């Protein structure tokens, strides 16, 4: 399984996104807001923690987080850059 697929599965499972099939998540779709995955700001807290827990990639500050948490593509790129 690719990193992006693992990421999608992890997000769906850990955030309890019961209505979303991981395979249907677009790599470029925004994670937050009304479009894309539709996550809210409190989910950002969870994602920061689970990225560290499952992928050993620490989002150290807000600027890094804003870049990394845009989409599956950006999050995967961030994790790869930390490994």
């Amino acid at each position, binding site marked *: 399984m690719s990193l992006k697929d693992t990421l999608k599965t992890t997000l769906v499972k850990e955030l*309890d996104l019961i209505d979303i099939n991981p395979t249907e998540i677009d790599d470029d779709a925004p994670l937050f*807001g009304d479009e894309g995955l539709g996550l809210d*700001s409190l989910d*950002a807290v969870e994602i920061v923690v689970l990225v560290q827990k499952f992928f050993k990639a620490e989002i*150290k500050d*807000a600027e890094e*987080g804003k870049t990394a948490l845009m989409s599956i593509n950006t999050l995967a790129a961030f994790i790869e850059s930390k490994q």
Partner: protein
Amino acid sequence: MATNEKQRTWSSKSLASSFAHNIFYWAIRFGGRYIAYFMLLFVVAFYTVQPTIRKRSSEYRLRRFGQRSFLGELSDCFKLQMELGKMLVDRAVMGILGEFTMDATDQDKQTLTDLAAQGRGMVLVTGHVGCWQLGMSVLDLIDGPIAVVMYTDENDVDRHYYEHGDKQGPPFSIIDPRGPMGGTLEMMEIIKKGGVLCVMGDRNFGSPKGMVDVKFMGGTISVPISAYKIASTMNVPIAVTFSHRTGAGHGRIWISRVIDVPEELGRRTDNYQPYAQQFAQGLEEFVAKHPYQFFNFFNMWDHKNQ
């Protein structure tokens, strides 16, 4: 917490114009605090006789003071508005003349010091009561970075104490909840640095999804869970903290309680309800002691207003 403007009917915007505020600032600069207090009497009387202004606090007053005669209602409303006015004057005096003292009991100081000494960071949850805006000014007693989540309406003419004269800005950073991802990344950054995050626990700045119902003054209000969620996720303590104005140019911080939210409570909003309820309990204890220092001038019990 991208702010849902359509659902939020409260406003941080001042009732008065920029010109009126400047008259007060001028009076303080050249006449001092008591001139401004005296001027307040007329301004507050002007607002108190307006039914639309009285209506803003009517639900709170009914719950706190019960059914009152018309004169009793006028009196309560006048006292509430006057306390808010005095707090705003004190805030301006601090900005212009640098005069304000905030104290706390030795026990409360020790509690804050002990929490800070753990080095994990902490969340201070407070409410729109007493002299909360000046309470922020004494957070520099605590080592480490401090951030305050603060919502300001656009074009608000009312100035914070650090916006007067040639002040270098506040002694803390400000996180705008309208920022990307509701400012949560900035909030987490402060905690990671072992700092203090100050959040208002009684009003919604963002998505209605991040709210939970709690019992308050015989009814139900909705309060945000962001503070409790961050505390749970990052394993940091919460200090429920209120401040009240004790006299001209004086205030006191009160640590109502320390809440330890269990780790990894997850995504379900209801999981955070017991901790939000503890905050509401603290707020209710505050208004029992200081009934005229409660400044949520909107119907909190009407969920459409959240």
